[in-house]
């Protein structure tokens, strides 16, 4: 009877969820977006998602083998990284690109820092940024959703072949330069809400992302601070532009639904590993992500700024954490 007895420091009971549980929750929450991407982009989506997840998992396993560390796949974080990377890729990129991105994500974005929990930057965004920097043409080639064009052409990247289906944000950039009517762009709001427009695999459908985000909030997997801060600050920035110069800047609502804004607010900026710990820090972090995104969208050269914003704020996270260092409830102890 007593042979089974164990001893350990207190406490002796604990709450019923785990790292894996949290990651599974995120996977569940992402499933509407995955479904939407498969609906809109058919087998292209399915293949890329499968490739990313698979390669991420295999890379993590390999890194563990090389480091002679216990296998860490059962925490499922590699799957989340793979999913988020896949959902942030354009539909028509070749599979080998997705493979390179996934390897970079896990190997350089995560494992060199020591694996889960140690990375400074969001691994999926690291992969995406590397791809953007390397294969710019492929990464800015937007195909038409299959619901609009069942033939959904596969783009081969020739050097002068430009945009196939402009995304709402590409239109927005044109509008800023005075080459497109703001009104025509604003009319894309419904399409962007449903997801029936050009863009990355997972970012087009606002409704699917909202569903997933709501699930995470209800399950308390994430707290509301970061999404709220991101969306609020983005909305405020977009509104300022819209109010000052409504003939150049598109409606703030479209800014929130278009591009990776929602994917970022609910799934990317909330990555706990790379976000600040404290509530105050989360507010600052989220506000920074929203503001930098809008800065890049409205002033910079890129149509979309989410990944840069997240990356930049990831880098600032240690400083934010330090700045928002908690004071003990009873004040700072003496001596």
């Amino acid at each position, binding site marked *: 009877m007593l042979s089974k007895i164990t001893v350990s420091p207190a406490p002796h009971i604990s709450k019923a969820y785990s790292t894996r549980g949290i990651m599974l929750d995120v996977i569940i929450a992402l499933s509407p977006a995955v479904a939407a991407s498969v609906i809109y982009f058919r087998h292209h989506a399915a293949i890329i998602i499968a490739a990313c997840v698979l390669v991420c998992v295999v890379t993590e396993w390999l890194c563990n083998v090389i480091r002679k560390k216990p296998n860490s796949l059962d925490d499922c974080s590699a799957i989340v990284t793979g999913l988020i990377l896949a959902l942030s890729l354009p539909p028509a990129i070749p599979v080998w690109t997705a493979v390179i991105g996934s390897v970079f994500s896990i190997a350089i974005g995560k494992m060199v820092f020591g694996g889960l929990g140690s990375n400074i930057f969001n691994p999926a965004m690291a992969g995406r940024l590397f791809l953007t920097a390397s294969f710019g043409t492929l990464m800015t080639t937007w195909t038409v959703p299959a619901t609009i064009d069942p033939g959904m052409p596969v783009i081969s990247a020739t050097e002068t072949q430009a945009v196939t289906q402009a995304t709402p944000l590409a239109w927005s950039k044109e509008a800023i330069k005075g080459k497109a009517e703001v009104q025509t762009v604003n009319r894309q709001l419904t399409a962007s809400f449903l997801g029936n427009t050009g863009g990355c695999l997972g970012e087009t459908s606002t409704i699917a992302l909202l569903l997933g985000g709501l699930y995470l909030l209800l399950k308390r997997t994430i707290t509301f601070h970061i999404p709220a801060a991101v969306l609020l600050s983005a909305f405020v920035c977009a509104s300022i532009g819209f109010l000052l110069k409504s003939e150049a800047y598109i409606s703030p609502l479209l800014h929130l639904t278009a591009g990776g804004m929602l994917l970022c607010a609910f799934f990317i900026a909330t990555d706990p590993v790379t976000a600040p710990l404290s509530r105050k820090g989360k507010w600052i972090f989220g506000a920074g992500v929203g503001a930098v995104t809008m800065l890049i969208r409205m002033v910079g050269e890129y149509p979309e700024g989410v990944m840069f914003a997240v990356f*930049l704020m990831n880098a*600032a996270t240690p400083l934010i954490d*330090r700045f928002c260092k908690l004071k003990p409830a009873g004040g700072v102890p003496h001596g």
Partner: protein
Amino acid sequence: METVQVLLLAFVSIVIVNNLVFTKFLGICPYLGVSGRLDMAFGMGCAVTFVVTLAGIMTWMINNWVLATLHLEVMKYVCFILVIAGAVQLVEMYLRKFFPTLYESFGIFLPLITTNCAILGLCLFIDLWGIKSLLEATVLSFGAGIGFTMAICIMAGIRENLQLADVPDCLRGAPITLITAGLLTLAFMGFAGMIG
């Protein structure tokens, strides 16, 4: 009004868009060496800002007022480095003697700066870009220092976190710092082209 705008843009551009560390690979040695602790990094940043502003102004004056008029561009590098090295050494001695506390907190970084490419590099870039006004040169120099301080402080924050992380042995120290620095340049890529 217009000059103010130009100067402001120049400042933002050198701090963020054309940050010396991230886009020009300047000052990497202290960036890797002194970014272990935030307070040290900040001290280094302050010292660099001080010296680079001083150096930028002085070399601009020498270059435009003396060397250019005498057609002695060939002496540029020698003069630049002599001015920087001499000035740094003087400032250091001066601080050490008269402001020991200030010296303790930031003067100790001064000697390190003579061999810091960021200083000479900035002077050379100011020359290369053909900056024609002393005011703009001053703003650029000061901005370069601020940009360096920002970069090294961000890095120091990250490295303080990495101290507690389970980084593989062979990547500890310089390698992981380099990789982090690389990823940081990706983050700053977002601002590329923002100011033409």
